């Protein structure tokens, strides 16, 4: 244990990390989605009503029927909703202030949650166009999308 860094006089303190090393199976749909991210392609899935759901889900959100038809969607889209993360906690994928946003990619009818690497909250607005910034090394993870970036004059 280390010397005191917290409250109280002369109290010891020490870092304590509790970690659960989950190893999850993806299933075919999420597996294909993550494989696509690794290959630089974002995929959605076709719902029973023809809507494109992205990120894909395994079962139709309305009827519960299994869904199987996967389609590509764009790597650009628009912000549907967002909030500003001014104080960044450890373990976030960006280490500086950024937006957390719901982004509806072109060709998709639903939105995904991801980070938007914007210079300030003033630069972000609902409806703003964004594009994917891919990670340099991709492994089949949602963080293969390093961040979304604002497109054009909005930045």
């Amino acid at each position, binding site marked *: 244990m280390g010397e005191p860094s917290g409250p109280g006089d002369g109290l010891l303190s*020490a*870092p304590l*990390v509790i970690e659960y090393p989950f190893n*999850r199976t993806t299933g*075919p749909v999420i597996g294909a989605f993550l*494989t696509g991210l690794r290959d630089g392609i974002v995929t959605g899935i076709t719902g029973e009503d023809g809507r494109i759901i992205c990120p894909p889900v395994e079962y139709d959100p309305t009827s519960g029927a299994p869904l199987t038809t996967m*389609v590509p969607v764009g790597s650009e889209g628009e912000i549907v909703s967002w909030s500003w993360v001014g104080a960044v906690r450890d373990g976030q994928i960006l280490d500086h202030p950024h937006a957390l946003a719901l982004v509806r990619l072109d060709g998709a009818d639903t939105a995904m949650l991801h980070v938007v690497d914007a210079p300030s909250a003033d630069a972000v607005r609902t409806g703003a166009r964004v594009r994917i910034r891919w990670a340099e090394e991709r492994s089949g*993870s949602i963080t293969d999308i390093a961040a979304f970036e604002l497109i054009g004059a909005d930045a």
Partner: protein
Amino acid sequence: MSELWTQPAIDTSAIDGLTDAETIKRVRIPASISYNYIPGLAPTRFLRGLAEKKILGERCQTTGDVYVPPRGVSPIDGLPTVEQVELPHKGTVASFCVVHIGFGVNAPPTPFCSALVLLDGAAVSVYGPVQEVPYDQVRIGMRVEPVWADDDALTTSFENIKWWRPIDEPDVDAESLKGHM
């Protein structure tokens, strides 16, 4: 490898460029929680004692029982334990189990014996591995002593006691250990 799931096959024919090779089937998603652990006043006194190879318990004002590690309050009367007691470096195996599945960064190679050791004069037992004896020869009532880390490696940690080992003394009657786990 056997199938990891049973779900309808998916159709990815509309997606150009999706590689067939090595589709993602498993992902590691560790969930971790980081604490800054502050043990409190009485455990701090205990841990500082360990740095000097002292095992310090604290006595209940009502029953006279000595608690180690101390929490600063007696679980019997709810009052502060104000008297500090230095306990001897001798104890008795009050209970034990044999561990066959390794875990933790400092655990001995499996199989090993993890024991509750009732220090002489204490009311409750402390945990620790028993080494320097085959794991299948550990028994309740066996007399043991702590094996300490080297002096220059002592810290304010219970890991200063690397393990417990048998000493050449007659076993303690198991009946006398009841209620002290």
